[in-house]
């Protein structure tokens, strides 16, 4: 039963106030895009054992989507940040590196 801190309203709350929304930082491919790109956007997932960037919505709170970096093996949360970005911000990357020196980085 996770706890997360919503970066949009500052509340730290339990999982049941939020809704999970799957892998973050997917690039959308629209009409005319090659099959493979569309497939990677719509279906294929990193599903990593370890550091995962993911989407959450503060459904029962401020209603905002945000992103979290979390370990799928220990469930440690490295940090949460605003959804309006295409890749994890530097402080989040640094926080992960500090905890997981062997981590290969966001790709």
């Amino acid at each position, binding site marked *: 039963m996770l706890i997360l801190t919503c970066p949009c309203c500052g509340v730290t709350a339990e999982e049941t106030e939020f809704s999970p929304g799957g892998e973050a930082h997917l690039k959308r491919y629209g009409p005319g895009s090659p099959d493979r790109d*569309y497939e990677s956007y719509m*279906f294929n997932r990193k*599903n*990593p054992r370890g550091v995962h960037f993911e989407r959450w919505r503060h459904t029962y709170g401020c209603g905002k989507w945000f992103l979290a970096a979390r370990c*799928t093996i*220990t469930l440690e949360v490295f940090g949460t940040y605003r959804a309006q970005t295409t890749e994890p911000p530097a402080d989040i990357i640094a926080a992960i590196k500090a905890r997981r020196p062997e981590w290969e980085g966001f790709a």
Partner: protein
Amino acid sequence: MKRYSAFAIAREALRQHKGWSHAWASPEPGSSYDVVIVGAGGHGLATAYYLGRNFGITNVAVIDKGWLGGGNTGRNTTIIRSNYLQDPSAALYEKSRALFETLSQDLNYNVMFSPRGVMMLAQTEHEKRGYLRTERANALQRVQTRFIQPAEVKKLVPIINLDGPRYPVLGALWQARGGTARHDAVAWGFARACSDMGMHVIEQCAVTGVEAAGGQVTAVNTTKGTISCKKLGIVVAGHSGALADMAGFRLPVESVALQALVSEPVKPCMDVVVMANTVHGYMSQSDKGEMVIGGGADGFNNYTQRGSWHHIEETVRALVETFPMISRLKMLRQWGGIVDMTGDRSPIISKTPLGNCFINCGWGTGGFKATPGSGWAMAELIAKGEPGPLAAEFSMTRFREGRFIDESVAAGVAH
């Protein structure tokens, strides 16, 4: 292999049971095999078994990182049914159910297949229409199901509350020859039969890498050394993403925790399996007497085999509403398993971008029932290099091609 029978037990009883030997051998891995199967869950073992039985391919190793059967095979709620809506699913699951009918005899191992009947409650008009649709489809798919009225529901399940204040029971889709089986025994029985054919079932050996040359798989790296293979079958359920990563491709799959719980054992009070999908709960009573209850899946990626508590509460609430008499029973144990969910909630039995490497995954919350059928279809795919009719529709390219096999459409769920 010593045959199992009442007679054999009687004979052994006279000599302190000293004559039994290992149900399956536990050899050190050899250096190369015709086929390596990663994952000694039910599906991996069944794949190996049918490779041997149907195709005479026995130079096979089944490798597992832990104890065999310890993945989802060892932690599921054992519901077996084939009342699926879409033709490809119905064909595959019915094949599997039919194999279950004689599996104990085929394996000479009592897997306790118990065709006690599976009932899916209709609790809204919409759900009822969905099941009527399934009933019609099943009739043409050679799956025997019947939509039954509330009175018959009550007769089959005396503990049910037909007129709960929120979701009165409007009837049910009834598959009389659905049921349950002893999940561990399925894995053990297959392992014993594989071992008997000379296959190697190798436990405590994790696959850590996949080697390829010229676009073809050549070997797997494991914690017990490198093992060459001509063909590779990946059958690792929740860990499919990791294995695909080793083999250099991505899957339309996410791994999440799915939970279950059992009550303390009580004397028989429920003879069939009941699934109440509107309120999200399902329950059966094991032969030992516990009420076996399936919970919900987390929505976030998770490899811990623990799920979030609130799903247990939601499930239990639904079941207390449906079966009020369980209120004063007690929960004995809860646990989780890591299931691999696809976008259309149907499995993948498929060739992969890597030559001679095949994958069987995506069974999500409902693959135990498919164990023998999945092994059958996967063995055919590996042996022939092309899918047979059972597996044909389950390729991993179906998503980008837009050929979903969506089972959620008729208000059904996929346990």
